[in-house]
């Protein structure tokens, strides 16, 4: 168990679970958090607690743990005080010695030993079982019912109406722990009342039972009860003589010298009773309290690791963060809407100049033939010719110009530069741009490709340039 190296409490648990509702980090953050604490990777609980502490600042609203814990601590302190006082008064009641009837130690033993042992057995059973069975055992404790009543009080209502943030198993352990603590306080009350009575009063103890119990047998029972402190404090075990003289019927009805002498000895019982209280009602209970505390802690750890989202965070702690993101943001390009501006299907039979952008001369001739058009001058531009060569050809063009382009190749800026020379050439009256499809498709183009050319030409805002669109 990891219980030793974590300082998990109900508060940290509740705060963590509230944090998880709000924030779980992302893989990058969580992994880099874990890498900074590489030594802790073997200890997920500690790592998660650190993580929770680090991110606690994100919880700006009121903490659930605050209301819940204040409820719990109020519950515990009210009941704690109550149990202490009850213990004290039960002690007083048991020890009230009027000077006539002596105090029956069997009653006392019942309260400081038998009842605690029974209740501890019940606690153990509840600890060892789960779910409905454990619930059944818990219902046997009066505390369960008292708390149930208590929870209808106004200040408790609010917490009660919250969805219980704790699992049933954890609630069970917390309940058991509370029982141990309250019982402990009860027993302290009892012990204190005993000591107090012994100091301020002269109590005569006696014993009586309807059972046929000889002093010898009774003494041996008492001796075995006291076996635990026999070695340390032998005087706290009643002797046979003491047992004999304290049997009720022998005590006589009237005060006589012998009885007065005996009364002195009868007081020797208190040590035994005090030790019984200390050992059975207090020490044993204390051990059980420690066990239940451990149980709470262990259950807290389990629940902690079982909270929704925890396994995801642990996985992020343990797996490398792999990213393929670009650190640089992209500026999104505005897309120009397509319109019918500068689009035409009105071709001439003959042009002054025919250019083929990125075509070979032969290919232009072939296309002219297919489209039944003629040109006074035919030039291959773009492709392998140089920019200055193309420049002079564009400057020398005049009147009507036809410009073949490959429809599937989008317009480059190189092409636009060339087209702008034509636009600026005052001799040129009109430029018709004709996007051709592949020869394989008989120069047919995709509408999608022509749209690209249309958009580009429309963007130039020149009234001189037209796109021939014979797509339909």
């Amino acid at each position, binding site marked *: 168990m990891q219980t030793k190296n974590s300082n998990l409490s109900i508060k940290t648990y509740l705060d963590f679970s509230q944090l998880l509702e709000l924030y779980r980090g992302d893989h990058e953050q969580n992994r880099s958090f874990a890498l900074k604490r590489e030594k802790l990777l073997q200890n997920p609980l500690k790592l998660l607690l650190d993580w929770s502490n680090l991110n606690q600042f994100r919880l700006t609203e009121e903490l659930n743990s605050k209301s819940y814990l204040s409820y719990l601590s109020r519950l515990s302190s009210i009941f704690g005080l109550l149990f202490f006082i009850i213990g004290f008064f039960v002690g007083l009641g048991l020890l009230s010695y009027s000077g006539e009837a002596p105090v029956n130690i069997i009653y006392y033993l019942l309260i400081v030993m038998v009842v605690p042992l029974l209740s501890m057995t019940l606690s153990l059973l509840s600890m060892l079982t789960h779910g409905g069975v454990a619930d059944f055992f818990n219902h046997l404790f009066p505390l369960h019912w008292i708390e149930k009543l208590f929870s209808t009080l106004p200040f408790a209502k609010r917490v009660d109406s919250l969805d219980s943030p704790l699992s049933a198993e954890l609630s069970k352990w917390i309940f058991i722990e509370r029982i141990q603590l309250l019982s402990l306080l009860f027993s302290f009350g009892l012990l204190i009342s005993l000591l107090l009575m012994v100091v301020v009063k002269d109590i005569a103890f006696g014993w009586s039972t309807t059972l046929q119990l000889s002093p010898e047998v009774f003494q041996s029972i008492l001796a075995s009860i006291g076996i635990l402190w026999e070695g340390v404090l032998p005087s706290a075990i009643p002797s046979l003589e003491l047992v004999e003289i304290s049997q009720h019927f022998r005590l006589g009805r009237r005060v006589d010298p012998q009885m007065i002498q005996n009364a002195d000895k009868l007081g020797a019982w208190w040590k035994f009773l005090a030790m019984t209280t200390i050992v059975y009602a207090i020490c044993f209970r204390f051990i059980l309290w420690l066990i239940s505390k451990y149980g709470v802690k262990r259950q807290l750890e389990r629940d902690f690791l079982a909270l929704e989202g925890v396994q995801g965070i642990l996985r992020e702690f343990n797996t490398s963060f792999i990213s393929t993101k670009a650190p640089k943001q992209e500026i999104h*390009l505005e897309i120009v809407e397509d319109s019918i501006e500068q689009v035409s299907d009105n071709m001439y039979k003959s042009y002054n100049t025919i250019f083929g952008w990125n075509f070979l001369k032969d290919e232009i001739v072939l296309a002219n033939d297919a489209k039944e058009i003629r040109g006074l001058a035919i030039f291959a531009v773009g492709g392998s010719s140089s920019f200055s060569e193309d420049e002079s050809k564009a400057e020398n063009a005049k009147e009507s110009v036809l410009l073949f382009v490959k429809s599937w190749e989008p317009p480059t800026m190189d092409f636009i530069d060339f087209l702008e020379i034509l636009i600026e050439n005052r001799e040129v009256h009109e430029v018709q741009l004709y996007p051709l499809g592949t020869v394989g498709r008989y120069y047919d183009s995709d509408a999608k490709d022509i749209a690209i050319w249309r958009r580009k030409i429309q963007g130039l805002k020149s009234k001189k340039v037209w796109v021939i669109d014979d797509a339909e």
Partner: protein
Amino acid sequence: MMQSSSYPKFAVVGHPNKGKSSIVSSMAYDDSIQIGDTPGTTQVNRGFPLKVDGEIIYELFDTPGFQRARRILSWLKEQEPVSADKRGDLVKKFIVENREHPKFKDEIELLEPIVNGAGIIYVVDASKPYGVEYETEMEILRWTGQPSMAILNLIGDEDYRDQWKRALGHYFRLVRTFNPIEATFRDHMELLESMAQLKEEWTKPIQKAIGILETLHQQKIEHSVDTIVSSMQKSLSYIYVAKIKGDSATKLEEKTAKLEYQKQIVKYEREHKQEIEKIWNHRSIDKAEDALLLDDIGLFSKESASIFGLSQKELIITGASAGALGGLGIDLAFGGGTLFLASLIGGAVGGVGAMVGFDNIYDVKVLGQSFGKRELTVGPMKNLNFPYILLGRALYHASVMAKRSHAQRDFVNLGDENSYTGQVIDSDMRKKLERVHVKLRARNVPKDESIKEYRDTVLKGLLGLLG
């Protein structure tokens, strides 16, 4: 000397509109990169480093296309002739001297990563014929002296790959076909294998990158399965609780409660789908999601049941063999059971749709709780087919996301979903699944081993769909 960092870099370059950004999207699992018909969509170069815990393994650059290749080549040729080993320096000089030149913005953006040591991945569209104008671009790239390869992308329907290969062979040692839209994870890894061969020093890091990406892929699958399993657990055991006033629920109260129940289940499904999309880095998909067939087919519809649910026969076999019947004892007494009973008696009800009357199959109870509070609870869903519908949809969605290329910008296309169920979940797997379904329906916590078995089965199903 060219400066070079310790990790390999690659610049994806080429003519405008040939799918450079698409290739980078698919290789960097980034569906936010702008891809578009408009040439010049990409205007600046952008690096996509593959990082593991902050350490860069390799970096891929998206770049704008060549715009004025001829002018750059003539600028280079006008310089004092240098020996081949110094030509890279001239390209550098071009960048330095023309940085402010507005006409060379694109070329500088595209050449910059290369002169900084990036290998060249030259992209062409091999569904269109080759042309001499490409030679200018390839010539410039050759001047940089950087290791290079070419990728044939097929954007259209035609295939001019042979022509292209003959031409590209003069400039590039490696020529590979890669279709970013359809590329599978395997294709991606194979492309990386080729890139590893470009330079001796790069082989190891790229091999490492392949290993990392394979691990990542595996992790995503596992993570998806975990997400599906926990979502199934949540949905199948969910109950909706409503406070009611009277002694018993009115018709309206019951109807509202049922609706709320359905809403929550649908919400769980949506959340889980978003989680899956996040795992597979399909973050921009929600825009397209309305067109996702899965949403058209409502979770509670008959269509969904007939595609993803089990047939009557399968259902009966599964129910009987996994002991579902035992757990159903109570249900048979309720409305929902009668449907199931009817089908048991033997095909009295025709068609799978009839098995999916969702209306009567909720467990609806009124609980008289402490201090006079009365509660109406709806759920868990008692319909035996429901878990299979839910799981079927989840697996199908996850597999589509896992296979989807990040270059895809279209709506999700669900092809032959009709053959879905029988394909990946056989009767043996169903038996294992049913064991957990029974528990969840009864709101019992399944044993850890059964959950593990369930998880393994879901994993097997998903792997089956991924092929």
